[in-house]
């Protein structure tokens, strides 16, 4: 009888530990990539999102941040810094057909993403944008803004 009690305690302890682990595993995990915004889909890597949305990052891209949200559509938000001279190549390699335009209205998809991720788009008065560029079933919008010197900030938002 005396040997049974420790065994029961061990079994109860294992059950409790198991329940805690199971509970933890059911809670949403963050995306492990430090470049991902909080709430980004945990299982979608930057590489997959870039590939799915037909976006090719310039080699010198820095300050990369991204978010993927999966609902009725899958959305992909991306921002990075690059030399302004690489922008035409970035647009070409990403098969973006529209041309950058200075307009009273900036691309609304990117503006909406900007409010979510605190991109402060209003602080770039000379920003140019491409609204609703389509690649197959993917709908993409882009904003390019001068960030000082020869550096540019690129903001992309896509739905598919």
């Amino acid at each position, binding site marked *: 009888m005396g040997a049974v009690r420790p065994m029961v305690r061990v079994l109860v302890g294992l059950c409790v530990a198991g329940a805690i682990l199971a509970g933890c*595993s*059911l809670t*949403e*995990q963050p995306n492990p990539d430090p470049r991902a915004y909080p*709430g980004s889909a*945990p*299982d*979608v890597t930057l590489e997959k999102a870039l590939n*799915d949305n037909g976006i090719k990052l310039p080699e010198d891209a820095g300050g990369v941040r991204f978010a993927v*949200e*999966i*609902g*009725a*559509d*899958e*959305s992909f938000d991306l921002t990075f810094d690059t030399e302004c001279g690489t922008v035409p190549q970035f647009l070409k390699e990403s098969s973006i057909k529209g041309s950058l335009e200075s307009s*009273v*209205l900036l*691309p*609304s*998809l990117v*503006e*909406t993403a900007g*409010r*979510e991720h605190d991109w402060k788009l209003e602080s770039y008065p000379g920003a140019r944008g491409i*609204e*609703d560029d389509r690649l197959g*079933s993917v*709908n993409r*919008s882009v904003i390019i803004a001068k960030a000082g010197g020869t550096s540019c900030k690129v903001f992309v938002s896509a*739905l*598919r």
Partner: protein
Amino acid sequence: MPASRSSWRSAIRLQQQVEADVKRLKGNATFTTGWRTTRTGNGDANWFLALNGFQYRVTGSTVGSGADKKTEYWVQVYKRYNWGTDSEGRDDVYWPRKSLPAIHVRQADWARLNTVGLARDYDTSGSAFFGG
């Protein structure tokens, strides 16, 4: 669809976008944004899963003169949801999450629900007038 705090966040997201557009365009005798794309964001599961990306358009005009001058506008929204095709490249559906799914529906099966008539594509549309 009950109006929860998070559903108001989704509505406010559109309201902020519309207000930003109107702020830039008002003063013109008439104006339109043309159809533009935006999204609800995932603040509210109902809006996010049913709609997420959608189209909207703001058309308006400046009426009156002097101190009575004001801007009136219509906001229209539209979305067609389709169940997709296997070749479209959409992700499979997982719940609660991909790495440990209790439910996993392949995109091919998801699309087949529509093919065999168990699920229908649907349109969402609406409009509202501001001013007057």
